[in-house]
């Protein structure tokens, strides 16, 4: 900030700088730069760790959970099935029981489409309509076919697929 001095208090110039240089750093300027520099250093030294502290949870790696949801023989092609399960996960400093579910669509020969239970529009839970053979979302009329493709309504993307593994005839899915 620019400051105005009362007359007669302009410093040092009179002592030794007269006539040598017209652009001399006055004592006041020097001190205000010094204070500004120290204040900036303190601010930076505080701001960096505080910013890291505040955003730290967002930078964490998500935990991975694999949940066994049954034998592959439990699922028949053309007949989507909702599977409920729960698993233990960390929530901040607590350990909670997370309830979740997936839609399992068998494609035959040990191949599957496993869908996350949330509509890709705004995250509502959808269901399988066995008469129309479509996934229907009640919130805003999103409709998906058995492969997860959007048929009608506002959803911007096909249903989200969940990773799975098949081992010794057992189906395991990644919990979310």
């Amino acid at each position, binding site marked *: 900030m620019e*400051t105005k001095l009362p007359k007669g208090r302009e410093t040092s110039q009179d002592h030794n700088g007269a006539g040598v240089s017209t652009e001399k750093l006055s004592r006041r300027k020097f001190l205000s730069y010094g204070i500004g520099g120290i204040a900036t250093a303190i601010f930076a030294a505080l701001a960096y*760790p*505080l910013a890291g502290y505040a955003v730290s949870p967002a930078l964490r790696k998500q935990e991975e959970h694999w949940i066994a949801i049954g034998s592959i023989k439990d699922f028949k092609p053309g007949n989507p099935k909702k599977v409920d399960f729960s698993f233990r996960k960390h929530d901040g*400093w607590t350990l909670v029981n997370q309830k979740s579910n997936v839609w399992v669509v068998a494609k035959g020969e040990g191949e599957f489409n496993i869908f996350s239970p949330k509509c890709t529009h705004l995250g509502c839970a959808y269901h399988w309509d066995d008469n129309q053979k479509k996934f229907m979302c009640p919130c805003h009329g999103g409709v998906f076919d058995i492969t997860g493709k959007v048929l009608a309504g506002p959803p911007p993307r096909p249903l989200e697929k969940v990773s799975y593994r098949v081992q010794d005839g057992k189906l395991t899915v990644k919990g979310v």
Partner: protein
Amino acid sequence: MVLRIYDWLDRRFDLRPAMEKILIHPVPSWVNWLYCFGGITFFLFVLQVITGIFLMLYYVPSPDHAYASVSFISHDIQFGYLVRGMHHWTASLIVVMVVVHMLRVFWHGAYKNPRELNWVAGVFLFLLMMGFGFTGYLLPWDQKAYWATSVGTNIAGSAPIIGSFILKVIRGGTDLGAVTLVRFFTIHVMVLPAITVVFLVAHFLMIRRQGISRPF
């Protein structure tokens, strides 16, 4: 850049006279480094406000969560140990700086007429700082916190006649528990800061109005 923004605001609000009145503040030539302890205390208080707000991002004042959330800050949050450490050490440092500031004022006799009221405001600020220390000590909800508060509240309870009533008011019941923790938290983060700001403003206005006293 900053200057240009300042100029832009100044053209609209004519800030310069006010800013000059506040910032261009002649200080007597005999003032030396001994006069900086009050300012240091204020700086540390501002630091406590900042680190305290950041600690509140994760801290939960409940017996179920207090200890775990503090440990979460220290061990799982990036720089959490640093933010908590700053709050912890600055708390002690404030008490030291308040005492040094008081000693200097006392030694120079700066509390005398006409500055008695500013001394009184300062004593209140000292008591408020002790209040911050006492209430903040319980919040980590570890053994030291619990037993220190147990002892501290029992001291208040030893007052004649009204002691047991005071004890119950401070603890929010006979036992030291969930209610005690929440009220200490509320006092620590809402009540004491609000009162402190009032006294700080009074303290600063008075010193500005009366000027720094000449020693002895």
